[in-house]
């Protein structure tokens, strides 16, 4: 064995080969796994305040693992779910007993922020799941595009045509993939995934806005909702003004001489500047 071989053989392998792919693949699989009982679902339940369901989910997860199985033997997730059920009234009664006291000390925003933060995290998780599902559809379409390209190339071969440059090949691929994408993205499954992605993105954004609103209110900074309310009132006032102006103008036609002068090409007599709404 050469010195190089010896050094290579002796180098410790800190991580299994392909560990990054396994990790990322596991992450994607986790995002796309739905239903109760999986780790992500359990986490979402906990974030949304469903303590019993969340702990039950973790219980089921743990039941598949060696030494920890003893914790949940004989009932799957029952002990953890039971613990969750026991915690629920405790958490509620602590809130009832001490909530007012906490508010008196100015801790209301913190409590609200904690709630909003949990919901924001849950919504962000749902958003990631929706993105993964959508990307799954896109990946399918790309794969289909490759099939279409292969078929096209085979047809070209039968006709005796050839592809002589890389650019031509890329263009063929682009056309084939575009067709496959159109077909896939207009199918019901893709439309459903797209709609779900939109909902998840909007909900995630709303939770982010809620967190910002809680902090803004605590700091006496106008919130987005305050500004929108002001803009709405302004717009309503503009509409009323417009209606009044048009009602008045209806009884007052423009003088003909002014119209004739203004109609001359190149006449720049019309004053610029804002008009009332």
């Amino acid at each position, binding site marked *: 064995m050469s010195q190089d071989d010896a050094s290579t053989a002796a180098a410790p392998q800190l991580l299994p080969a392909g560990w990054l792919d396994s990790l990322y693949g596991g992450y994607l699989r986790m995002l796309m796994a739905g239903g109760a009982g999986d780790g992500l679902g359990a986490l979402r339940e906990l974030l949304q305040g469903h303590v019993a369901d969340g702990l039950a989910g973790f219980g089921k997860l743990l039941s598949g693992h060696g030494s920890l199985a003893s914790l949940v033997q004989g009932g799957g997730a029952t002990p953890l779910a039971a613990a969750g059920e026991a915690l629920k009234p405790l958490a509620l009664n602590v809130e009832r007993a001490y909530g007012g006291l906490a508010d008196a000390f100015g801790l209301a925003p913190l409590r609200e922020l904690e709630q909003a933060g949990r919901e924001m995290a849950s919504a962000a998780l749902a958003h990631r799941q929706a993105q993964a599902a959508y990307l799954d559809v896109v990946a399918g379409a790309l794969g289909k595009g490759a099939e279409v390209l292969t078929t096209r190339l085979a047809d070209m*071969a039968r006709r005796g045509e*050839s*592809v002589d440059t890389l650019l031509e090949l890329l*263009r063929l691929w*682009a056309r084939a993939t*575009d067709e496959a994408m159109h077909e896939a993205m207009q199918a019901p499954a893709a439309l459903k995934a797209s709609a779900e992605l*939109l909902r998840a993105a909007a909900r995630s954004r709303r939770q982010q806005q809620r967190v910002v609103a809680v902090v803004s209110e605590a700091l006496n900074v106008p919130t987005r909702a305050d500004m*929108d309310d002001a803009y709405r009132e302004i717009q309503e006032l503009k509409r009323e003004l417009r209606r009044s102006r048009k009602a008045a103008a209806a009884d007052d036609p423009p003088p003909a001489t002014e119209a004739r002068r203004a109609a001359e*090409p190149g006449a720049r007599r019309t004053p610029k500047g804002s*008009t009332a709404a």
Partner: protein
Amino acid sequence: MSAQDASAAPAGASPIRITPQSLLQEWQRMSGKIASGSRRLAELSEEQLAIATAPKEEIWRQDMVRLYRYLPADGRQPSGVPVLLAYALVGRYQMIDLEAERSFVRKLLAQGLDVYMVDWGHPSRAQRWLGIDDYVSGYLDDCVDTIRSRHGVPAVNLLGICQGGVFAACYAALFPRKVKNLVLAVTPIDFHGDASSPEAGAGYMNLWARSLEPEDIDLLVDTFGLAPGAVVGFSFLMMNPVANVAKYTTELVEILDDEAKLLNFLRMERWISDRPGHPGEVMRQWFKDLYQGNKLVKNELMLGGRRVDLKQVTMPVLNVYAEGDVIIPNACSRGLDGVFGSADYSELGVPGGHIGTFVGGKAQKVLAPSVAKWLAQRS
């Protein structure tokens, strides 16, 4: 791509004839193009890239909306009833005056028309509460009244493009005495026209909008308030995702050493990158009442408490559609003879796509002369 003798091509052989030598030659060719293209890009001036250069003057303004009057071509005196052009909110009006050689506006001016344009501007979050009625009965009506007052005429010619065409149709229905002739270009009127006869690769926005629940639209609008221009642009990009990406790679490389084509490309990109935001309340009604409810063609659309009845559109109507339109399928924009109350309804098919109708080479020869002739016959 070359066709060889069938006898020379063994059955089942791959058609790919890319050899290391051809790859090297192609690389050298591309490198040369990229090098000369880079030099050309560095030398281009701002004036060369300017779009919407037809001379015009600002006549009126309100909030972010402007009304322009184009100066006559070559000192000619324009004749006839003025025509007001109303573009969509989802893109800037500059597209129909993209460059001197491909300008629908200049061609109308060359036909002797007196041309006005309403520029909807760039709405901000402050305009999130603007609805379709604010645009139709507010801004558009003010523009029409300004032109009527300047020229001492009771009615103007109105030409609406895409979403602007919907606004124009609504306006003509609500204020028929103020519109002499109505021209609609690439305008969706029957938003469900494609439902029974879907075209492959077309009408994605229709399908997508109908796949949502009305509550989804409310969630979207209540959350975001104003659709940012970038998001609107992205939605158009996604209608042809791969082709649009290829445009910036494989297609751009080919035109780098052709100054005329490169300038065309850059000017179009300038227009594409200038996407205005879309007021939320317009979006809410656009998606719920039009895309989902299809209320316009059913005469159920309500604007400002008034029902838009297309049967009140009694003036002559010219409906221009793009034969290759994938954004507004032909099923949504043509065959509308019985929809309007007009006894003088005509259709004109123009070669090209949704945008190509205004900037395409073939369309340039058809659209403006046809519109001008149609208007002149009804002055």
